[in-house]
């Protein structure tokens, strides 16, 4: 899988909610190789302030049309600049980076998707992929956010899954509480999924990981970390990993080239 750098043309860049945008990019070279769970490194501006590229998961991939879509939350300098870009302008992207989600076993009857906030961006691509590859699986989405206004519109995912459970920390929509509490509440212990995919903030992933490990649910987690290069050169994206390192020491995993998708057993969650 070859990586490409290209000036992607912005076909659309609109708000999905007050803090979230969707950017549609004409990026044939990257689109050709892209897989759900992988990401692109976006250079938001030609100036050196900001200096580093910003990583964003594929939200949608259209190989045939050479189009990729990103959904991003405005959190700081870089995403703010991105949000001001107009249709017709270009942004320079590098990708695809990292390793995508692997499909669940053929016989996975029920697959759960657990999205926290903007973690939804990567999971939409994942759901779409699994709908195609495991059409007979029953796909259930648990979608949590701080508050109702953070959700992206249903239209982007309702056709991809059979069931959606919303939760909000402030109770402004759906279940009041964390997405994990929501999962626990809507299902008894006897209806655990055959497979689980999760993406969201660290604390949510941590609790979810403990839960899936406890319940022996096979799962994949999409993680974030600060990125220098996004391509394995700087070793900046390390997170505490369980992999053995020489004399019994645990070592670090590198989100950009060993992830961003990990099995929960690979991470030292307690140190995250």
């Amino acid at each position, binding site marked *: 899988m*070859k990586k490409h750098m290209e000036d992607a043309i912005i076909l659309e860049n609109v708000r999905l909610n007050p803090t979230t945008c969707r950017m549609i990019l004409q990026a044939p070279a990257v689109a050709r190789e892209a897989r759900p769970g992988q990401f692109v490194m976006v250079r938001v501006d030609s100036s050196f302030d900001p200096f580093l590229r910003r990583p964003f998961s594929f939200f949608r991939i259209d190989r045939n049309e050479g189009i990729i879509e990103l959904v991003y939350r405005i959190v700081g300098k870089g995403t703010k600049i991105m949000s001001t870009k107009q249709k017709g302008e270009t942004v320079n992207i590098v990708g695809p980076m990292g390793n995508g989600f692997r499909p669940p076993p053929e016989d996975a009857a029920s697959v759960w998707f657990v999205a926290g906030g903007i973690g939804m961006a990567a999971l939409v691509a994942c759901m779409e992929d699994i709908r195609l590859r495991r059409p007979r699986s029953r796909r259930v989405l648990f979608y949590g956010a701080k508050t109702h206004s953070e959700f992206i519109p249903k239209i982007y995912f309702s056709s991809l899954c059979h069931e959606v459970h919303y939760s909000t920390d402030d109770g402004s929509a759906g279940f009041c509480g964390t997405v994990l509490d929501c999962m626990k509440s809507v299902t008894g212990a006897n209806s655990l999924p055959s497979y689980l995919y999760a993406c969201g903030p660290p604390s949510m992933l941590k609790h979810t990981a403990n839960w899936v490990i406890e319940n022996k649910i096979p799962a994949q987690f999409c993680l974030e*970390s600060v990125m*220098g290069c996004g391509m394995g050169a700087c070793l900046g994206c390390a997170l505490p990993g369980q992999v053995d390192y020489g004399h019994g020491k645990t070592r670090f995993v590198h989100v950009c080239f060993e992830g961003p998708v990990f099995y929960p057993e690979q991470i030292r969650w307690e140190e995250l």
Partner: protein
Amino acid sequence: MKKSVDLSVTVGPIRLQNPVMVASGTFGYGREFADFVPLEKLGAVIVKGISLTPRPGNPPPRIVETTAGLINSIGLENVGVEVFLKEKLPYLQKRSVPVIVNIFGERVEEYRELAEILDNQEGIIALEVNISCPNVSAGGLHFGADPESAAKVIETVKENTSLPVMVKLSPQVTSIALIARAVEEAGADIISCINTIPAMAVDIYTRKPRLGNVVGGLSGPAIKPIALRCVFEVVRAVKIPVVGVGGIATPEDALEFLLVGARAVQVGSVNFTNPRASLEIIEGIARFLSENNFATIEEYIGTLQLSEGDPTIQTVR
């Protein structure tokens, strides 16, 4: 474009097809950039710092962006020299890329062993000795902060290798010229400068350092003016060739270092921002020289004009 320019340079005992190397720690082991840069077009690839045994590196977060730069505290994570030779070097040998191995140790002894092991390996054209890492025995200072310790490391490495030895200096010293002279006398063949500058970032909300290691090294365009001044000082302090590094992001930046007398440059952090930067810098240098009627890069190197009354290096304000 006018006729082609001869970009080849000699840097002390080594000869390069062009003066553009990629800096240690910013280009992995070369392979990571193969999709973006035809590696064989580079002057040389300097690989990530190698130690005698594998090192896990520092706790995350390891990188934080700053205005026009970044601070890193990778903590010299690396696979160790053994794995490097077995798994990383062969690829570069196959691609016929001139390789410079960046080495570091916590004790002089480690430098000695590294020098021995790396001697006589195909494709390696020089060692770059990083003397800016913590020296446990000297109480937290690095070898690079003290002329005597620096000289000691270089003498040891020189005695144990037949390869040209390039020494990488830290800018965080009272007089970089002094350290440069010390390593020259100790037998260094080339000096490269600068390494990153000790720096820090904190989060005003969580009230914690933004790096797992608290302190890290600043690199990127922000530090270019400091690096250029260091190179200028070192060029005037020693007779051995100097390789400039620090904040080079464009062909113009590279030319500035060559102008003050660097015989080659290293492209570092900008590889993250623009993975094709090293190649674009080579092409840009060629174009500039051609447009300005230089037949060879040698005609340009070190031709900075200082007027009569110009002060020698003095630190103002």
